[in-house]
C-alpha cells in the first residue's frame, strides 16, 4: 500500500466523476480529505481522529462512492477500446467476479473498496494488453515500446492494489477494529472503543 504523496484537493475531480444519484456529499468529501491530511502525523490530534471516525460513520456515501466511481470508471475505460458486445460483457463480468471473489462474503467496507480498486486495475491492465497486442501486430516499434511501458505500469498498479488488500488483512489480524467499521447498520468499533482520548505513544514493535 502506498501512501498518497500529493497533498492536493482531489475531491473536486472525484465529485465531478460521480453520478448525481450516488448520494455523495461533496462537502463531506472535502472535510474527509482535510482530516486525513491533518491526522497523518506521528502524534495526531485525538479530536481529529474522532472527527474522522464520525465522518466515516455519518457519510456512508463516501464508501459507496467508490463502487459508483469503479463502475463508471470501468465503463469509461472499456468505451476507449470500442469493443464488441461480447468483449465488453467479458471485461465487466471478469471485473465483477474478481471483485466478488476477493472481497468474499461479509466483507468489511474497507475490504470492499480495496477489492473494487483491484477490479479497476485489472480492467486497465487487460485493456492495455489488448492495445499492446494490436501494436505488436502492426509492427510499429515505437508503439510497441509505448504500450509495453503502459502494460508494465498497469501490472505494478494491479499488484500494488492486491498487496494493499493482503496487507490490510494481515494488519487486521492483529488489530481487528481496523475492519469493524460497519456502514450498513451504522455500527463502528474503532479506536474510541478503547476509551483512549490521549495521543497514543508509538509502538515500535512490528
Amino acid at each position, binding site marked *: *500500500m*502506498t*501512501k*498518497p504523496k500529493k497533498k492536493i484537493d*482531489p475531491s473536486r*475531480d*472525484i465529485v465531478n*466523476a460521480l453520478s448525481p444519484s450516488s448520494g455523495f456529499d461533496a462537502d463531506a468529501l472535502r472535510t*474527509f*480529505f482535510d*482530516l*486525513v491530511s491533518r*491526522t497523518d502525523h506521528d502524534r*495526531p490530534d485525538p479530536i481529529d*481522529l474522532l472527527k*474522522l*471516525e464520525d465522518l*466515516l460513520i455519518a457519510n456512508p456515501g*463516501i464508501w459507496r462512492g*467508490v463502487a459508483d*466511481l*469503479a463502475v463508471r*470508471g*470501468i465503463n*469509461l*475505460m472499456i468505451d*476507449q*477500446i470500442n469493443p464488441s458486445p461480447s468483449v465488453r460483457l467479458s471485461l465487466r463480468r471478469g471485473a465483477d467476479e474478481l471483485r466478488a471473489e476477493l472481497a468474499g462474503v461479509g466483507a468489511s467496507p*474497507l475490504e470492499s*473498496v*480495496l477489492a*473494487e*480498486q483491484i477490479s*479497476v*486495475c485489472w*480492467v*486497465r491492465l487487460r485493456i*492495455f494488453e489488448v*492495445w499492446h497486442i494490436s501494436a505488436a501486430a502492426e509492427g*510499429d516499434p*515505437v508503439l510497441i515500446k*509505448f*504500450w509495453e511501458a*503502459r502494460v508494465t505500469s498497469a501490472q505494478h498498479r494491479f499488484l500494488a492494489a492486491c498487496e*494493499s488488500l493482503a496487507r*490490510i488483512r494481515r*494488519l487486521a489480524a492483529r*488489530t481487528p*477494529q*481496523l475492519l469493524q*467499521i460497519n456502514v450498513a447498520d451504522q455500527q463502528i468499533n*474503532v*479506536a474510541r472503543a*478503547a476509551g*483512549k482520548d490521549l495521543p*497514543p*505513544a*508509538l*509502538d515500535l514493535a*512490528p
Partner: protein
Amino acid sequence: MSWSKRGSHRYYIRKVRRGDRFVTVYIGRGPAAEAIAALDAEISAARRGLIAAHAEQAAVADAVDAPAELVKVLVEALTEASLLASGHHYDDHGEWKRLRGK
C-alpha cells in the same frame, strides 16, 4: 527540406542537425534531386502520420488511466483514514505501524 532558388535554377537542400546547430546540405538539382525530394516528402508525411497515431494512442491511454487514478486516490484515502482511526501511523520506513495503547 526545401528548394532554394539561385539564378534561374532551383536546388534541393536539406537542413541537417549537427550537434547543437543546423547546417544546410545542398543535394543539387535535376532528376536525382527531384527523386530525393519526393522520397523525403514521403518519409516526412509518414513520420507526421506516425506522430499523430502515437498522440492518439497516448490520449487513449490517458483516458483509461484517469478513472482508475480517481478510484486509487479515494481508496488510498479511505485506507489511510481507517488505519489512522484504528490506531496506526505511517512510519519513516514506509510501513504502517500500530500506536501503543491501541
